């Protein structure tokens, strides 16, 4: 079975972001400012587990600038077999519509993919759209908010998953190939091993293929800013949070708790 995962490099979750003249910059004194989108680690983990169970290989795909390799490095370090960076100046300024076109083209180019797995969303853009747009573009079974992959029947060509829906859980079965977006509940991602890290840094230096628009035989009007429908009109930092601290004083802990509950109800926190 050939499983693909799509992953994105994002700012670290502990990075300090700053906005100046509409430009966002970030740094992280505690470590690397760029990381693999944390949601994508669940997709990577699930793909590796499926490979361990059913055999085959896992290919990681990422779209981004040439230097944006953190997501792919993490993917290989965790245990993916191969990685592809899809990168082209012309892809700059892509919204999810343009991104999904490029990713779908890359998955088509891989040729024999049975299953593509995404994290539910990226921590920077937070749209959560790309996975289902890719499914639509490929015409594959779209399975979003997956919390368990119950069965993959490669021979019968079906996949059964459990989805989280507002009212509870839903078990669905659909034909392969399929595109999944997964939630945190699905697994606990492994830490990259030292051996994996060594392999990943070597792979990034020597073997990483970089596919440009021409390699994908993509229509240049559908990529980058040209292929996008969303424009960033304004980017600004949120005003700092303000708040005040009230100490609840009462005769007994029970009375204090009751007063706290009243206040929380009043503020519509509860």
């Amino acid at each position: 079975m050939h499983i693909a995962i799509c992953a994105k490099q994002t700012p670290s979750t502990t990075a300090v972001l700053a906005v100046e003249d509409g430009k966002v910059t970030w740094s992280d004194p505690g470590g690397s400012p760029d990381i693999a989108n944390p949601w994508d680690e669940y997709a990577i983990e699930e793909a590796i587990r499926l490979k361990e169970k059913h055999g085959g290989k896992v290919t990681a795909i990422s779209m981004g600038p040439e230097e944006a390799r953190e997501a792919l490095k993490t993917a290989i370090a965790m245990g993916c077999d191969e990685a592809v960076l899809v990168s082209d100046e012309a892809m700059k300024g892509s919204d999810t519509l343009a991104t999904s076109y490029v990713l779908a083209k890359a998955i088509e180019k891989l040729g024999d993919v049975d299953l593509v797995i995404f994290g539910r969303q990226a921590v920077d853009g937070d749209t959560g759209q790309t996975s289902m747009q890719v499914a639509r573009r490929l015409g594959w079974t779209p399975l979003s908010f997956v919390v368990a992959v119950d069965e993959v029947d490669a021979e019968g060509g079906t996949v059964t998953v459990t989805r989280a829906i507002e009212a509870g859980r839903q078990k669905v079965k659909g034909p392969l190939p399929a595109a999944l977006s997964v939630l945190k509940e699905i697994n606990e991602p492994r830490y990259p091993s030292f051996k994996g890290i060594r392999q990943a840094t070597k792979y990034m230096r020597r073997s990483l293929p970089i596919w440009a628009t021409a390699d994908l035989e993509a229509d240049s009007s559908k990529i980058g800013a040209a292929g996008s429908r969303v424009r960033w009109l304004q980017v600004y930092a949120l005003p700092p949070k303000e708040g005040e601290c009230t100490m609840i004083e009462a005769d007994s802990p029970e009375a204090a708790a009751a007063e706290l509950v009243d206040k929380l109800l009043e503020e519509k926190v509860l």
Partner: protein
Amino acid sequence: MGFQLSEEQQMFRSAVRALAEKELKPRAREIDESAEFPVDLIPKMAEMGLLSMAIPEECDGADVGAISIAIAIEEIGRVCGSTGLSVAAHTSLGCFPLARWGTPEQKGRWLPLLGSGASMGALCLTEPGAGSDLRGVKARGVRDRGDWVISGTKAWITNASLAKVLVVYLQTDPEAGKRGYSMLLVETDRPGVTIHPKEKKMGVRGSPTHQVSFDDVRVPAENLLGEEGRGLQQTLETLDGGRIGIGALAVGIAQGALEEAVTYARERTAFGRPVADFQAIQWMLADAETEIEAARLLVRRAAWLKEHGQRFTREAAMAKLYASEMAERVTRNAIQILGSYGYSSEYPVERMYRDARLMTIGEGTSEVQRLVIARQVLKRY
């Protein structure tokens, strides 16, 4: 000359930090209070390669090199000194001598067990009556019909209760002077081996420390590790590497304490402003940052020399001496910055202070480090 970690080393660091933050930091207080090593984390640490850092790749190890070992131990020490100490001792004192002097059979038998954490590594060196004085050990190994018979008592042995095999330093020929010592491998299930109850300690309480006695323990000749009569030299070489590990651990503990102090100083107000606004606090923070950086550079330079196959005895001693004494100052001042809260076990800095205190004692006291450095200085000029 470069001060930049390689891409691989940076990624090791992030990976270890992620594990430390998620798995160890939330439990560090409990590990200290219960004085229980978090054995349930051993498989996770092993899977990452944290327990096979000094094991060659052909024995299924991660073999990451001295610099990455220092980075990993620093990162673990930053959140949990106890786990840091056990991993440091496992790596430098348990795995290293086996990887360095083991026969193919010894390596094949033991290194996979050490790498998987099925056995934690432990070196039996110190005795109730001898520590700094390596030639004063009383434990003996005597040849008897092709076997070795071991008798004596070892003290302050890190990880002994988690080990399946011990590296034991013994006098094997009282007539041979400094060539009268050897290292033997002793399986802990041999008749006559007693691992005594855990020592009660001031700090690094979650790292188990034991007295171990050997009562006419018989091991076969093939348990000799390295060369007969070379035990003293082998031990000195092992300790040189161990000192880099303790230096790295001290840097990590100090770094953790500084971060706690900064967080607190920003939040705590006095006289209407955060205490971080006051110069008295800022100077302590500035000194801590500077001294931690200096210690880290000493540790990494010693590690770099080791990794490049150069002599590093003097550098390892300097790194261990400076880093451990620095960690005492930094953790002490961290308590000072947190005031009464710093003295309370509600905050981690008092634990860090207790943990740091061992660093100037274990694997060669500050006094022994000064002796080692002074010898090198007097030889040099």
